[in-house]
């Protein structure tokens, strides 16, 4: 393919038209031609992380029951706190965590008893206890966490990154959003491309399924044999080649010819990538049993094969949203994913992938340290759960460029709001982009007359958690 036709294809493909990107892409054509919208390309500076796995505890896990112990709650159990912040619903007295916390690793980071396997890895983890968001509702908070904007249509983090970096493996979708059993709240908006080309949208995979045909659309043709399909593609190539020869070089024609070759390879590669039975017994044992184990192991196989961004959600709807029975439910939810998350961190490390894989754990917000008061139709009159809490919550990061064994920031004595070294979701995004090699203020896309950023006009890179 000659340079001219590629150049023309980039124009024709519409990727980045009207954007600052187009000018630079063309200007830099000698340095890096983009054959396809997914071809890999370097970011602004040398990245620490090359790929991301976001373990999304959708619904909002309670920080005071997982990674932010608050002994003051036990001391004040059942008493009104000196202050109570507005959240989605009314909450009452201090509600101590039903779980024990212990210190782990050389760092002595405290972790709740419900995450014992994760606790074994704290020296690789930076726990951020001072996260905060804007409002105590799922919908806007999910969009804020995923797309950097609470209401308006903006591209998700994964879309930004695949747009900016392309993929290392064009035989697989570059950005995969897993959620077993169906969509989370706010549905496909969580992985939307917004104003970026649709191809940068996350590919949804329902990891409830085991068969590759159900995991990836149109990955196999049940009525045409592999041999017959190979013959079809051979004939197609001959016809297309003759068509091309008659017309002279044309990047769009060439790219489409190539897309069939790619698709053919994808059939094999995707089937293989999603098939965890190809993992050694020891690895499968390490991840454990159940849906979470399976999807997290699939995610690792995908990352290993060059997928750029994998989001693994816990389940359909909002499983971590425990307005009641939090003791029982949080224990159950943690039991489902704890071993697999611990295994993922160890496994990535063993394989030498942890150094350049950014692992993110967290929900769209945390939960109140106070007990949720009964409300008709809302929590069945049980007074044993916690409401949403955007004032302060915990997320943790590990791997690619993260300083392990760190605890960053803190909430107040009771865990109600972030007070020290507060880190907004925009700051998290700025830091993520930094680790992936982007200056978040310079990584923009021109749309509707404006240069848009993931972080809008906000965001600070938090250097204290960087290695």
């Amino acid at each position: 393919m000659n340079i001219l036709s590629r150049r023309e294809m980039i124009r024709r493909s519409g990727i980045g038209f009207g954007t600052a990107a187009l000018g630079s892409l063309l200007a830099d054509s000698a340095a890096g031609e983009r054959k396809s919208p997914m071809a890999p390309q370097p970011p602004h500076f040398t990245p620490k992380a090359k790929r991301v796995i976001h373990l999304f505890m959708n619904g909002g896990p309670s920080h005071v029951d997982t990674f932010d112990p608050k002994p003051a709650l036990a001391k004040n159990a059942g008493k009104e706190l000196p202050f109570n912040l507005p959240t989605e619903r009314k909450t009452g007295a201090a509600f101590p965590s039903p779980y024990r916390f212990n210190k782990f690793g050389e760092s002595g980071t405290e972790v709740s008893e419900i995450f014992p396997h994760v606790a074994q890895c704290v020296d690789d983890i930076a726990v951020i206890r001072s996260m905060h968001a804007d409002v105590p509702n799922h919908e806007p908070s999910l969009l804020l966490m995923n797309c950097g904007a609470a209401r308006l249509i903006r591209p998700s983090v994964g879309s930004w990154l695949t747009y900016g970096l392309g993929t290392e493996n064009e035989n697989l979708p570059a950005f995969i959003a897993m959620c077993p059993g169906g969509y989370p709240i706010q549905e496909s908006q969580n992985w939307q491309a917004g104003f970026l080309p649709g191809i940068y949208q996350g590919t949804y995979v329902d990891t409830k399924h085991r068969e590759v045909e159900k995991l990836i659309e149109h990955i196999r043709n049940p009525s045409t044999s592999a041999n017959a399909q190979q013959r079809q593609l051979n004939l197609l190539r001959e016809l297309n080649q003759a068509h091309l020869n008659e017309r002279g070089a044309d990047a769009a024609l060439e790219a489409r010819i190539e897309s069939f070759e790619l698709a053919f390879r994808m059939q094999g590669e995707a089937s293989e990538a999603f098939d965890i039975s190809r993992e050694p017994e020891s690895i499968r044992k390490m991840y454990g049993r159940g849906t979470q184990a399976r999807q997290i192991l699939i995610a690792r196989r995908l990352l290993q094969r060059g997928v750029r961004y994998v989001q693994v959600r816990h389940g359909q709807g909002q499983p971590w949203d425990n307005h009641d029975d939090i003791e029982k439910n949080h224990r159950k939810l943690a039991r489902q994913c704890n071993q697999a998350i611990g295994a993922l961190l160890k496994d990535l490390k063993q394989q030498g992938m942890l150094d350049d894989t950014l692992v993110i754990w967290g929900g769209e917000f945390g939960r109140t340290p106070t007990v949720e008061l009964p409300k008709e139709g809302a929590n069945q009159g049980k007074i044993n759960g916690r409401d949403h809490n955007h004032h302060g919550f915990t997320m943790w990061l590990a791997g690619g460029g993260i300083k392990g064994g760190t605890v960053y920031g803190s909430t107040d004595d009771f865990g109600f709001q972030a007070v020290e070294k507060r880190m907004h979701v925009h700051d998290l995004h700025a830091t993520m982009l930094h680790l992936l090699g982007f200056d978040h203020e310079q990584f923009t896309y021109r749309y509707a007359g404006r240069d848009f950023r993931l972080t809008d006009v906000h965001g600070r890179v938090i250097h204290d958690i960087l290695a």
Partner: protein
Amino acid sequence: MRPGSTPSVALLVCVVSACGVNSRVVRADVDFFEKHIRPVFVEHCYECHSDKAGEPKAGLSLDRRSGWEQGGDSGPVLDLDNPEESLLLKAISYNDDFYQMPPEEKLSNEIVDHFREWIEMGAPAPEEEEDDDEEKSAAENREESVASLGKSHWAFQPPSLDIPAFEGELLHTHPIDRLIAVGLQEADLAPSQRATDETLVRRLHFDLTGLPPDYESMQQYLSSEDERKYEQLVEQLLQSPQFGERWARHWLDVARFADTKGYVFTQDRNYPDAHKYRDWVIDSFNRDRSIKEFLQFQLAADQLGNEQGSDLPAMGFLTLGRRFLNNQNDIIDDRIDVVTRGMMGLTVSCARCHDHKYDPIPTADYYSLYGVFDNSSEPGGDPSPLRMVDRKDLRDAHILLRGNASNRGEKVPRQFLQVLSPDDRRPFQEGSGRREMALAIAADENPLTARVFVNRVWGHLMGSHLVETPSDFGTRSNRPTQLPLLDYLTIRFIENDWSFKWLVREITGSSTYQQSVTHRTAAIERDPENRLYWRMNRRRLDFEAMRDSILKICNGLDLSEIGGPSDKITRVESRRRSLYAHLDRQNLPSLFRVFDVALPDTHVPKRFQTTVPQQALFLMNSPFIRHHSQGLASSREYETVEALYRQILARDPNPQEQELAEAFLTDGAHQSKEQTLAELAQVLLLSNEFIFLD
């Protein structure tokens, strides 16, 4: 900006001025003030402590930086060295013996903490705004700059007719070709030769109806010796109902059309009558309704349409947008955006939070239009669930400072955009002003509207737009190389009563449109992007044309009903044209995304065109392609290579193709003939010849 490029100065300017920040203060800190402090001042303190409230109580003004820096009658209110000692903080914490502010109720701890943090940060705030006199002069400056930008930018000027007089062979040619010839001659390029009849027939069929010609009509055309056969074919296609269907889909991209509201919690998200809007668009195009009226009705059919009310569904253009969890400000923003970008190529929604950075659109103008929509309501039900009507209790809109709903500024009258108004702009007089707005947008005198429409049509027919940013004609759009051509078409379009079919006739009648897609190395080197139109652009069928073609060829397309309810076309059994697809804004089928269908989230200026393996996978493996290729092969009519070529590509195979196909059939002899024929049919459906338009 993509990696690898240098930071643009313009971007930095945008970010800095977007926040109204002076250089001494860190932006994030000022953001903190704007987000956490100023709204509290406005809501809880201004009533007593602002200059505008008359005599500020205790001599303390909190509506200006110097106010809190100087303090009040009791002395300074801030102690930056000992924040906890600040009178302001003590008063709002109710920790001061004398002052407990605000008196009605103590502020939340969170707010108090914000104040503490703010004082600890050194009480950052934006530079003081000028006093009244200076403010006025700033506003005047703004008006002057609007006026001067309005004067200088090409798109705000009325179009002018400037067809060069040519001698010799160009004298009598089509005006489009003469205008194109200017640019070509300057670049020392010649136009390409006329495309073959086969190519032109196929091109016209797809461009005008979105469907392929069949073999018989192709043969008929090729054998005809009528000199007017080209024009007759154009006319025939313009009169077919599929013309309206095809172009309706293009307009639905502009209108960000979908059948649902997007995510609205657990409420019913369907717009059950959305299809009535689509039907109205199809019908308007088919009957060649004046585009002026077409646009006006979509904004104010309740006041402009016929008495029977059959034009009311036109207002689906406004009402069928995303509902943003029912947030009224966002719904109105979406409407302002679809109207201004979709019809006028102006990015007015950029002015929601601050004056437009590049175009002469002050924030006040945004809220003037906001007022129009804020005073329009959706009564739903009969006579049309899609309509809007003016509210009875009219109210002026406030400017929302920085777009923040809790931060109200001055009231602004409902009126049209300053840059497109005469010097003595007057507020709208009737009701919401929506009718007046509609008449001002779709007006012969509006320098943008007709141009924007003409440019869209040109783009669809020619494969590239004259103005490359079809929904942004603002000052950051490039002045089109072919401005005289755009202006010529615009003026003549208006003279022809904004007739869409006239415009299509005019463009397709030019030699420029009828050129072939030749590959001329020298020309490619001189003008690689074909900005000068020295040849036709090769185009790829969009999703709708591709799916409809496959259906038609495999005898699976139902053309009996024009219009009607939406259909789940992802079902294999669906026989409806793709434009009738049920579009769930929230969960657009991945098939649509993979094939670059316009995402109905917001107005789409032009579709992206990507080439990815998922497209190939669909064509290789999907139930859809299997169903239709097998269906075709199972018919007795298509048992030969020749028959398949005629049916799928509307031509006979050449000897080499015949030979390749025969060999393919022989190789597959171990399976059923029908299966092998289906496989061959599928290959032809997958071919570049099928999917690309020369």
